[in-house]
């Protein structure tokens, strides 16, 4: 499924699923970016999101001004160009905001233009963040670390699988759930996603083993009963 980064009311976050955006209650002033787009666009420019907005606001004219607005760089860009230099040492020149967006020839980007290095360089993101360019560095870092959604840990299902289906695989799933959360907290979102998948698969296998072995065990009970 497609994941979206969003810039809404001056706050940037992501990646979100379509449902998550719906729950956030975004309106048509938001900007979005997803993999495959060159730059941030108005939310109404993305067909499926526009459709969602129209559904959300009862078919009100969400798309009415979509045509009048060209692809505009989001607020992040504007603000960070205006703000004075932060108290921290300047970021390396090649990381400067003005040079980041719209570089030719980087197709298939996985991250939005002004947050190119989501997985490594938190410092860079924070310095260019509209709300924090200029100060309160630690708070900004904490806020941004919370922004992407944590992939599901599947903990409940791991516990249920441990009790009901297959204990060893259930325990494995609990361990993977913990690793998901740990890596998410440390900002390694890719690893978190990976462990989230592992825990899901452990649970699926546990349930399958449970489904296969339970009738067998019933059969063996009956056979023992007949023999005895």
């Amino acid at each position, binding site marked *: 499924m497609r994941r979206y980064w969003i810039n809404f009311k001056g706050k940037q976050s992501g990646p979100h699923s379509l449902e998550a955006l719906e729950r956030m209650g975004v309106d048509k002033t938001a900007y979005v970016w997803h993999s495959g787009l060159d730059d941030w666009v108005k939310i109404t420019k993305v067909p499926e999101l526009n459709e969602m907005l129209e559904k959300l606001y009862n078919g009100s004219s969400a798309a009415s001004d979509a045509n009048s607005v060209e692809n505009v760089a989001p607020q992040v860009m504007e603000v960070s160009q205006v703000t004075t230099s932060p108290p921290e040492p300047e970021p390396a020149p090649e990381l400067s905001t003005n040079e980041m967006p719209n570089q030719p020839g980087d197709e298939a980007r996985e991250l939005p233009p002004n947050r190119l290095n989501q997985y490594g360089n938190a410092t860079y993101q924070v310095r260019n963040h509209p709300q924090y360019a200029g100060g309160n560095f630690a708070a900004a870092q904490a806020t941004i670390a919370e922004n992407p959604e944590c992939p*599901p*840990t599947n*903990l*409940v299902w791991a*516990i*249920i699988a*441990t*009790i*009901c289906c297959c*204990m060893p695989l*259930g*325990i494995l799933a*609990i*361990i993977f*759930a*913990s*690793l*998901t*959360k*740990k890596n998410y*907290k440390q900002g390694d979102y890719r690893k978190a996603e990976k462990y989230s998948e592992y825990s899901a698969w452990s649970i699926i296998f546990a349930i399958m083993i449970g489904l296969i*072995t*339970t*009738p*067998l*065990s*019933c059969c*063996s*009970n*009956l056979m023992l*009963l007949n023999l005895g």
Partner: protein
Amino acid sequence: MSKKRAVKIGVILLLLIVAAFFYFSINPATTKYMPRCVFLTLTGYKCAGCGSQRALHSLLHGNVLDALRYNTFFVLAIPLIVIYLLNDYTKLIPSKVDEVITHHYTIIAIGIIVVLWWVFRNIYDW
């Protein structure tokens, strides 16, 4: 709430009610047809979930002490599971509580408790 979600919740509730009725009316301790733990059958050692069916039957009949005797961990895990389900699928749990119960130390602690319980019940034949 969307229609899809309502249907989902309805199906889950129906299954739960059917399962509860099933385990209320059948006593796994005396019925030979009930599935037995495969781990126990194969190794002779109890797993962490052994006795859950009997515990559930006792719980549904209101015998909490019996349920605790059959599988303490299962009885204690029920409220835990309810809290986690509410946390995952509703917004009823405050985010401060969420932070604690989904912390990775909490999760790993649950894993350790499961293993300890498993070892303990085999040593002391609980």
